[in-house]
């Protein structure tokens, strides 16, 4: 899994490429730690190229969502595919995130 973080003014975009399974969730947690610390703006989670997510990945999303809520920022989840939408649905994440 590759993670590309770009910042444009107040909007931080985190683009996930590949499978966000348990092992990759560990590295991703470290990669997006800076984003988590400065989540006072808008964080866009670009899931256009994310093919798979497991509960470990969902935890990262949830943690980011909580951090943003605490810092007055917001999280937008973009372009999830159907499989992932299915997972979001099963876990009630659809109602937790602003999904575009």
């Amino acid at each position, binding site marked *: 899994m590759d993670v590309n973080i770009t910042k444009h003014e107040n909007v931080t975009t985190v683009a996930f490429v590949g*499978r966000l399974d348990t092992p990759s969730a560990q590295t991703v947690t470290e990669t997006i730690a800076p984003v988590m610390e400065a989540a006072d703006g808008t964080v866009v989670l670009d899931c256009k190229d994310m093919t798979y997510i*497991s509960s470990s990945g969902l935890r990262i999303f949830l943690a980011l969502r909580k951090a943003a809520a605490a810092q007055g920022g917001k999280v937008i989840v973009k372009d999830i595919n159907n499989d992932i939408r299915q*997972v979001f649905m*099963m876990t*009630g994440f659809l109602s937790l995130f602003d999904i575009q």
Partner: protein
Amino acid sequence: MKLNKSEIRKSAMMNLLLVILAALALEATSVVQYYYSQKEIKEEASLRAEGQLENTRIQISDVLDQAEAAVRNNIWIAQWCIAVPDSIQRVTERVVSNNPVVVGSTMAFVPGYYKNSALFSPYTYRDGQTDELKYKTLATTEYDYPNQEWFQKGIAIESGHWSEPYIDKGGGDMLMTTFSMPVKDYSGRTAAVLTADISLGWLTSMFGDVKMYPSAFSMMASRTGKVMVSPAPAFAMYDTIQDIAASMENNEVVDVLSREMLAGESGSKTVRFRGDDYFVYYAPVERTGWSMCIIVPEDEVSGEIRTMAWLIRLLQIVGLLLLVFILRAVTRNQLKLREVSVKKDMMESDLRISRGIQMSMIPKVFPPFPDRKDIDMAGMIIPARDVGGDLYDFYMRDEKLFFCIGDVSGKGVPASLVMAITRSTFRSVSGRETSPAKIVSQMNESMADVNENNMFVTFFCGVLDMVTGKMTYCNAGHNAPLLLSDSVKELPVVPNLPLGIIADMSFQEQETELHCDDALLLYTDGLTEAEDSHHEQFGLKRVFGVLHEHRTATEHLETMRKVVNDFVGKAPQSDDLTMLLIHYLGDGSEQVSCRHLEMNNDIRQIPRLEAFVADIAVRRSLDPGLVASINLAIEEAVTNVIMYAYPKGTEGTVSIDSKDSPGLLEFTITDSGMEFDPTSAPKPDTSLDVEQRRVGGLGIHLVRSIMDSVTYQRKGGRNILKMTKKI
């Protein structure tokens, strides 16, 4: 390796030294013993001689006392009778008659005492034969009593005098000695001597008969050295001890001896006479100035001890010879033993090499076909002795698994040789045949032909078609393998005869079909007949118990080995224990297929699951969405195990088995970690808002959401999570 000559010579030298030391020790012992025994025996002889001499002295004194008393008691009568010469006769009669030891008595008057007669000496004596008293006068010119020693000394010595022994010719006419005492008249003038004679014949019989030793003899000499008693013929010709002394060889000693004897001293000496040594013990009879001695041949005293010494020496020589004999025997034995142990070492190292060669013939790397997903195998041989006669073998040819197990009768090297022959025959025959019956009968032919030692092999041979699951097999007297399917049961087999007994045997072939996830355990009787210390056998029932649970091939055998070990305890392993387990995971049936995946408890291995699921997806042409969610469910279940089943830092495994059939997928996740039931976790409330949502519990929730059924079981120390999904 043989023992070299210098070693043998060294041990011979050691033995010689030992014998010499033993001989020296024995000799020293006997010398000391001889010395002390001789000393003791001499002391003993000396004591005995002294006792004898003292005893004799007392007896002589007694006699002398009686004679002296006879004289003294009559002195006053004699004095009174001087005035009446006719009564003198009565005095002498009294002296003799009242004292049995006295043989004669006279009262001899000083010549001219009575004016009418120059000599006057009436004599009363005891007749030698009749014991009657007889009378005569000693006042004869032939006898001339005034010149006799007894008269002259008797008149001069107031206290009385014992005469030198003499033959009294004209008096007592025998060897005698006389005690004489002066008799004074009332005017105080010495008038006569009163005497008492005692015969010395009894001395000879009393003293001469003293026999300390058989050839000892006694001798008595008078004050002047005259021999009084001498019963020894050797000395009969000598009259005085001076003469005897002169005849001795060691003159110095003898001189001292005779001088001391004459001086009335007592003691002992060793003298040499005619080439022989004699011990002489001597003591005086003070009153008479006599000297007694006892002469004992030295031979007689020390002879016994000398005989004993020779006897001891003889026994010592016998003992030494015996020692030499024993040492030789022991040394030879030791040398032999060393040779044997050297040979044994060589043999043991040969056995170790043999074992290495034997084990190298048997496939030992498991899993043997790591690239194949349709089979899992494990095998092990635990020989009872260094080299055993059990074997198994297998290999893959043309998508067929050829396998066999066998047990050679007997143990040790011969069995292992037959085992090696069996194995190579199996390889060569099965290389060109695919029918187990043909393989077995051809092996039987070639082995029965050369079987001169009547060894035989129980054998089971099978050929498994990996594509169809069809298994043909042929049994030759071996135990029926166990088939692990929905339940555990024995594979039906026709017994047939073992290999190598009779050529021209026909072996019956059998057939069965293995389904996915079926397993076959081939074993030798070392498994079922393993005995504990009470000789109870492990038995098939316990084997079934172990096989009952779901395990990989390797785990099955390891568990079996552990259970057997625990059962046997400290009892010695009685037979080879050999097992071969074949776990079929192939596509034998079009309907059902199985997959097996084994992972370490490391989350980095999780990506392997994708390929595992993809495999099933392709086979069952599953919808990609379904594939992704199944993948997700399995990942969540496996992640759970990795995260929670094993304590941090410990290694463990998790195995994933799948079984897919039309309409249904089954997954089993197994681990041997701590008990952990993921289905007991509370269901997360997915309706809560972000602040209340908890981070954990999502995984199992996803599994449950995706799968149609999720069940957990704790069995045999393992967590077993079963999931099914209808398709």
